[in-house]
Every structure is written in C-alpha cells, then in structure tokens.
C-alpha cells in the first residue's frame, strides 16, 4: 500500500525543477478550483449567500453575521486540526484518527478545572489561562502517547491512534465523573463567541494567531525541512544526523497542542460538553482537509496552506449544504461523493496515464 502511494512522491522528488513547479501548481489547483466552483454555484443560485450584516446579539453587542462569517468562524477547529494533521501526515505517512476524541478529553479537562467539580457554575473556579494550559498539557501527553506508539513501536498511525479513538470519549466522561457541567460565566465563552465590542468572532483571531505561529515556525526553524525529510526517507535522514523517531513524536505532540486549542474553542462556544457528540466525525474532515490540500497521504512533502485552504473549502461546502436544507445526518453522503470525485481526479493512475510513456521505464526501475 505504502509502496504504491509513495511512488508519485518519489517521482516528484526525482524530477527536474520544472516538473516540481508544475506539481506545486497542481497541488493547490484542486482546493482552489473547488472553492471557485462553490463560490460560483452560490453566486448563481442565490447571491444573498454572501450578504454580511451587522446585528446585535442577545447580550446587546454588535456582531457581524452572515454565511461567510459563519464559514470563517465554524472552520476554526478544523483549520487547527488540519495544520497539526498535515505535520503528522508528512512525518509518519499516516493519519491520527483520535483527534475528535482527544478534543473531548481536552475540553473535559478545561471544563473540569473551570467548574471545580460542580455541576453548574456562574463564575470560573480556576483561572481560565491555567485551565487552558492544563488542557494543552494533557492533550500533548496523549499526543506523545500516540507518537511513542507510532515512532518507537512502529505501529501504523491509523491503528495506533485507534486506541485513543476508542477510549478517548470514555476518558473524557470519566474526567468529569460522567456529569455534564455547564459554565455560565460569559468570560469563558469569549473564546468561542464574541468579545464585547469586537464584531468578529474570536475563533477567527485564534486561528489567525495559530496560522501566523506556524508560518513563523516553518519560516525560521527547521521544523518543515526535518518533517519532510523524515517523511520522505526516515533512514536517509537518520544517516544525516536527524532522529526520525524524535521528530515523528514531536509532530504528534504538536498535533496534541492544536487539538487542545480546538477543543477549547469548541467547549467555549456553548459553555458545556457532550462527550459522545462533541467534535463527532471531525477527524474525518481533518484528514479530508489534508488530502484536499494536495498533500500526499503517504507522507513526505507537505503544504500546510493547502490543508488550511482545504479546511475552509470543507466548511464552505457544509454551510452551503445546510443553506439548501440538507439535514445534518444526510450530509456525510454528499461529502462522500465530493471525496470520491476529488481522490479519483488526483489519483496516481490518472497522472500515470498522462505520463504514459514514462510509465514503462519507471516499472523497469522498480523491478531492478
């Protein structure tokens, strides 16, 4: 399986600069084309989709509302997960399917600390910053657990994270003694809704902050380079003095931190938590965002901005479908059709057919 999926990556690496350029253009082509199609569809079907208006929310603060704002707002968690997932995919050649469950754990830890064990609180019992830091720490520990299984025990990522996927929501329920605490403190909800006086939803700012953070990290540190080299060839990078296991572990820990922030936003939106339903199926969307961004799911080269764009496209699609009264339970069927179309279009075989002449020589090399 991995041999097959890695073939296009190898080809990409082997080829000259010109081909590489075309490939990168091709990489962002799909998410951009999907976005353009969605925008065009909405423009033709109902231009009022793009209307943004200034309204007053229930607390009397001016807030922006409209489908576009809702896309930007609701995509926040997905964008954060997609960023972490891209790194994990690139370094280990597999995906973490436990992110939804881990979000439940992080949210549960934060709610537990803020409520201090009570069922309903009007003022927070622990300082919010402390609670969020604790949530991030716990989430990073669970990320490290996944990372150790993947890097040191060499278990396929999807299956290693199956453990946390199975247990995560149960652990989240156990942290809060299976109670469903409610936080009524408005300050707690700032991160998920609006800060008074600022009409733009706070999750948008958090997302931008995290994106900038990753841009800086990729620009000024070797994180991106190391991750890619480990993903492309772990042995070669070991011979070059890197520690592939450590780097894989690091990417899982980073994903853990992203998951915690996403979990915080999610519980902050409502001030409560539902262990079995919070962030349900979000792991699938996050993986889809990575694939949509043109990243090879077999690891290696990655483009974090492609994933971010992919996440927004998915949320755009979701919002569009909701607008046309598609029930949320039927949504997966439509998404599945989109996924299949996308993966078929970007399938290696389709590319192979385009470069049919090079195929025979490549086969010969593989055999040799």
């Amino acid at each position, binding site marked *: 399986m991995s041999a097959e999926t890695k073939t296009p990556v190898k080809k990409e690496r082997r080829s000259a600069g010109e081909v590489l350029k075309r490939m990168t253009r091709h990489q962002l082509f799909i998410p951009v084309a999907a976005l353009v199609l969605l925008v065009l569809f909405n423009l033709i079907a109902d231009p009022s989709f793009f209307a943004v208006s200034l309204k007053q929310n229930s607390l009397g603060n001016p807030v922006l509302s409209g489908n576009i704002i809702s896309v930007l707002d609701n995509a926040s968690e997905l964008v954060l997960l997609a960023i972490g997932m891209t790194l994990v995919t690139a370094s280990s050649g597999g995906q973490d399917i436990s992110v939804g469950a881990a979000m439940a754990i992080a949210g549960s830890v934060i709610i537990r600390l803020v409520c201090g064990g009570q069922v309903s609180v009007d003022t927070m019992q622990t300082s919010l910053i402390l609670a969020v830091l604790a949530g991030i720490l716990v989430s990073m520990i669970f990320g490290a657990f996944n990372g150790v299984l993947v890097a040191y025990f060499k278990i396929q990522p999807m299956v290693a994270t199956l453990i946390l996927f199975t247990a995560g929501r149960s652990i989240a329920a*156990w942290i809060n003694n299976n109670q469903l605490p409610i936080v009524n403190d408005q300050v707690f909800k700032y991160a998920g809704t609006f800060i008074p006086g600022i009409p733009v939803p706070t999750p948008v700012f958090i997302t931008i902050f995290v994106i900038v953070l990753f841009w800086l990290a990729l620009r000024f540190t070797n994180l991106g380079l190391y991750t890619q080299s480990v993903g492309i060839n772990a042995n070669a990078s070991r011979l070059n003095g890197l520690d592939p296991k450590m780097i894989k572990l690091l990417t899982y820990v980073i994903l853990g931190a992203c998951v915690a922030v996403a979990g915080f936003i999610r519980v902050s939106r409502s001030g409560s938590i539902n262990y079995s339903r919070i962030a349900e199926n979000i792991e699938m969307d996050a993986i889809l965002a990575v694939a949509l961004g043109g990243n090879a799911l077999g690891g290696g080269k990655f483009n974090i901005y492609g994933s971010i764009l992919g996440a927004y496209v998915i949320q755009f699609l979701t919002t569009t479908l909701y607008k046309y009264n598609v029930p949320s339970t039927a949504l997966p069927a439509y998404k599945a059709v989109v996924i299949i179309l996308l993966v078929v279009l970007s399938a290696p075989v389709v590319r192979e057919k385009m470069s049919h002449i090079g195929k025979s020589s490549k086969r010969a090399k593989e055999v040799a």
Partner: protein
Amino acid sequence: MPNDIAVDKQGRIKNRVSMSDTNLLLTITVVVFFAMYAFAVFFLGGSFTKPQSFLNILNNNASLIVLSCGMSIVMITGGIDISVGAVTGLVCMCCAVYLENHGGNLVVAILIGLGVGLAFGIVQGFLVAHLGIQPFIVSLAGMFFAKGMTTIVSKEPVRVTNESFMALKNIRVTVPGLGAYNSKTGNYIPAYVEIGVLIALAVVVIMFIVLRWTKLGRSFYAVGGNNQSANMLGINVRRTKFLAHVLCGLLAGLGGILYFLHVGSGDVANGAGDEMNAIAASIIGGTLLTGGVGNIAGTFFGVLSLNTIKRIVSSMGFDEAWWSNITVAAMICLFLIIQSVVLMRKNKKKV
C-alpha cells in the same frame, strides 16, 4: 500449510517464517482467551459458569464475527476497510424499509442486503486496486456515504413485523448437553444459539479453508507480504486486492443481514462503531496491519476475547459504559505492542 514448500528456495523460506508468526500470534490469542475465561469462571463465577452465557456472546456477535472475517482478509492484503460498520447499518435499514414499508418478501430482502454489500465492495475495490487510492480514504468515503444514505432511506427507526422474517429470527437451535436446570422450578432449559451464529460459524470455516488451502487465499498472503514479489511470482496483484475488497463488501452485507436478524429493526444507530470492533478483533486475533500475516481462526477468538473482557469488566463492578471502552482500548494497545515486538524480532532475524 503443506510441508513441501518449506524445503524450497529462498523466497519460499521467508514465507514459512511469516507463517510461523501467524501461528505464534494465533497461539497468544487463543491462550489469552482461555486464560481470561478461566479467570472469569473461577474468580467471578456467577453467569460465567453457565454455558448459555458463553453462547450469548456468540448470539450477540454473529454479525461482528462475519464483519471481522472480511476485515481480516482485507488487512491480510495490506489494506483496511472502515466502511463495514456503516454498511451494516445501511443493509439493516434497506431490508427493514423494504420488508415493512414495501411489503416485500424475505428472500428478496436478503438479496438486497447482499447486493448493497457487494456494490460497496466492488466500488471500493475498484478505487483501491485499479486507481491506486489509499484504502483508508476510499473506505472513509464509503463509510460517509453509507451513513448518509442510511438516514436518507429512513430517519425513523423501522420495526419489522413481517411474518416470515419473524419466523426466521426466532429460530433457536438447541445445543445438546449444554442445558441447565432452573434452580427455582427445576425445569430443564436447553442452551440455544440463534440461526445467525450457525451462518457466522459457517463463514469462519469457509474463509479459514479459502485462506489456507486455495490459490486465492495464498495470493492474499503473498500480496500483503510483498506487492512486488507477488507480482514477480505471477500473481495479479490488482485483481487479488480487488477480490479482497469485494469479499469484504459481501461479508459486510451478510454481516448486516445477521445484525438485522438479531435486532429485528432498522435504525440509524445500527452497526455504529462496528468497524472499529472488527479492526480490534482482527488485531487481537493476530492479523498484522502491515499485511501478509493473519488467521481467520485468530479473528474468531479475537471477537470472543473482545466481548469476554467487556463482560468481565462490567461484572467486576465497573459497569459504567466508559470502562468497557477503556478496557478494549487497553487490550488493543497490549496486542499492538506484542505484534510490534514480534515484528521487530523478525526484522532482527533477517539482519
């Protein structure tokens, strides 16, 4: 496996090594299962001592056994299929709606169920084998599609009252010699299994034979062990992978029918999470995720172990729902680490 292969050339000796891994992992699974059950009988007593409670594990998991067989086959070829649980739900719903709202007959309903499974298998197999798309992504889309379609077919739970269906559902096959006397009235209560269990056991036996002694079964192992050497041995890798997915889809359809026979209704929640249970059962049963190693008998014991540990945990007083999930996860973790150690040992040997 036949002995003559062991004597042969280099490529085949490697094959023999991986088969001994299969046996080692199978032994671990079987020993763990019997140790667990013995522990339960001696220290927990209660319902564990009754044969019927063991048969109930089979009654409740007939569909999971069939799903896990399909999953193991796909995993042996090096793939994965996470759509089986959702396909189970879809099959239940289609059969229920057809029988109840369209007044259909039972045979056609069963054919519809198998057809739905087969269709998923064919489409997913084509995408995986012929277009070279990652099995995880393909079956992810399959799962989404099946989940969505289930609610499109019907949002409300459909309870089936069809006569011939109820007759089939209520067939109880008594197992001789395992009955018990009711302690209060002294009446003899025979131990029974549902009709689904017989079908599931038949599937286990057939798949065991197919994997062990047929050309197709051997090629599943060869493809999973090493794509390129399988290709060089003259095995049609694409066709083999395709067939593995088709078989898995068909078994998912059959699993759906068995699930439907057990619960007797169509519901959106049917089969939810069963893909993970099936993967867990395969892993516990000694199927390696990297492909090439696995055994249907192990998978069967995997399903039994999975459900025995769940019952042990709940009868030890940890009856909140979360404990069973956490134990199952811990068990997967344990077996994954055992596998990982076995693999590392094998790799060291090679060096």
